[in-house]
């Protein structure tokens, strides 16, 4: 009679301690004031949230996160699809292409960020290319106008192979006869994919838009390794700001109020994702 619960117990204990309790604790913390002492919290209502709304850095950070989504998500939805289409044909060396394009996915984000930091160096190879094309050299990570985009490029570069493989397995399930029919009609590359491929894999495109949005909301390591959110908050996103307020300023209540904002946004994306695109995976 107790058997099912015994099987569930170990996993449930871990999820309880490391997911559910922290989840509710985050909400409680967001209504607490720790400013007098880190050891004694005082209930402070919506003070943390009100202060959040008064803080220009918070808006800057939200804007940066939004730019992150707006730039990375469309590129990660389109470029990998295009590459998957190219790889979904009989070509020599196809496995090698897949391995090389997938390599950035496997390698730790810390090494990827270090590698790009080296490319972005003031006298680095990227500035050599830029100056030899006749432009002024760019402070890729030190110019507030560029830093955020330089970091976004790393995220995109690291994500392409991952989404490409998701697309590729989706493309394998498109019936071959439809393409053959197109060939008989003499349809070109573009018409073929606009009329057959895209409609067929629309759900996968939508899935990739939501999962890449969720992971763009959560970026941290790239920023930590490359810019620490600088210069002048130019590349600071919401998770980095939470980290900074929580672990560097020990501003627990304030950081938690921000964490609740992050929770709400990510939960919304996830809910859409699960209900619309991943029902089969979870057998709902």
């Amino acid at each position, binding site marked *: 009679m107790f058997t099912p619960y015994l099987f569930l117990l170990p996993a449930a204990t871990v999820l309880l301690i490391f997911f559910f309790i922290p989840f509710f604790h985050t909400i409680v913390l967001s209504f607490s004031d720790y400013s007098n002492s880190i050891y004694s919290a005082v209930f402070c209502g919506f003070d943390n949230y009100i202060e959040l709304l008064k803080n220009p850095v918070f808006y800057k950070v939200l804007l940066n996160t939004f730019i992150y989504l707006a730039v990375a998500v469309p590129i990660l939805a389109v470029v990998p699809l295009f590459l998957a289409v190219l790889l979904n044909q009989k070509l020599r060396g196809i496995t090698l292409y897949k391995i090389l394009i*997938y390599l950035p996915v496997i390698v730790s*984000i810390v090494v990827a960020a270090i590698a790009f930091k080296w490319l972005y160096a003031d006298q680095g190879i990227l500035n050599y290319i830029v100056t030899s094309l006749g432009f002024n050299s760019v402070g890729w990570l030190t110019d507030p106008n560029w830093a955020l985009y330089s970091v976004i490029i790393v995220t995109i570069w690291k994500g392409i192979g991952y989404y490409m493989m998701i697309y590729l397995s989706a493309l394998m399930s498109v019936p071959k006869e439809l393409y053959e029919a197109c060939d008989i009609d003499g349809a070109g590359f573009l018409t073929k994919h606009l009329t057959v491929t895209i409609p067929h894999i629309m759900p996968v495109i939508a899935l990739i838009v939501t999962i890449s949005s969720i992971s763009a909301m959560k970026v941290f390591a790239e920023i930590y390794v490359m810019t620490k959110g600088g210069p002048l908050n130019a590349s600071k996103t919401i998770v980095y700001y939470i980290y900074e307020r929580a672990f560097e300023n020990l501003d627990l209540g304030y950081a938690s109020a921000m964490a609740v904002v992050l929770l709400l946004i990510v939960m919304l994306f996830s809910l859409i994702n699960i209900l619309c695109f991943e029902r089969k995976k979870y057998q709902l």
Partner: protein
Amino acid sequence: MKNGKLFSHLILILISLLSIFPFLWLISTSLKGAGENIFAYPPVFIPSDFTFENYAGVWKRVNLLGYFINSMIVAAGTVLLNLILSSLAAYPLARMEFKGKKIIFFAILATIMIPFQAIMLPVYLITIKLHLTDNVNNLAGYIGLIMPFAVSAFGIFLMRQAFLTIPKEMEEAAIIDGCNAFQVFWKVLLPMVKPSLAVLAIFTFIGSWGEFLWPSIVLTKESLYTLPVGVNNLQGMFSANWRYIAAGSIISIVPIIVFFLSMQKYFISGENEGAVKG
């Protein structure tokens, strides 16, 4: 048609090069000796003052082997716990009827929606309360690195799906033979879902191996650094010595690249779409 293939090759070669160029440039820098300007304009790709000295130097001054062992311990522990806890929890969810099943099912599903980044502060406070940090002792430090990732809804659902595909007759036969629920699970069901266990193991391993945020929050002792934390730390240690930073970074990615190449069919066959993690 011929033109189409040529075009495909050109694009794929270009993207492949872009994918590996940052690593190649790092390797090139790591092989340049002290006599060569690494900021030379125009940049030189093949080192003229070729040397392995940077590798020897960084290996001697930084405990890369220690970081590797720490990463192995944490990844092995995380994988093992995920395999055990996920399949244990998945079995009743796939096969038994019991009170509260629906609630438990949705509670587990809900954890998918909670990003670790939003709850990391209380997770940290709890880890300290449970004395699972490296300033207690090394074992506690390792356990603290592992526990928040010891089980995931992703793993539970993956295993549940695997159990659902096994015909019920298999278990019934075992029960008639006198097996109890645990024996059925251990001796009959688990051996039949090995492919799913392999997928779960590989993707959990990759996730754990690359994890940076959590170890950089909890770790205080250099002797317990995992590879990502240790490699990030190279930047502080050798500030402008990019030869050393490059050499250390390249050493750090060798194990995972070997792992990837030997397991490549799991990553690039296109058959594991269900295994992708959100």
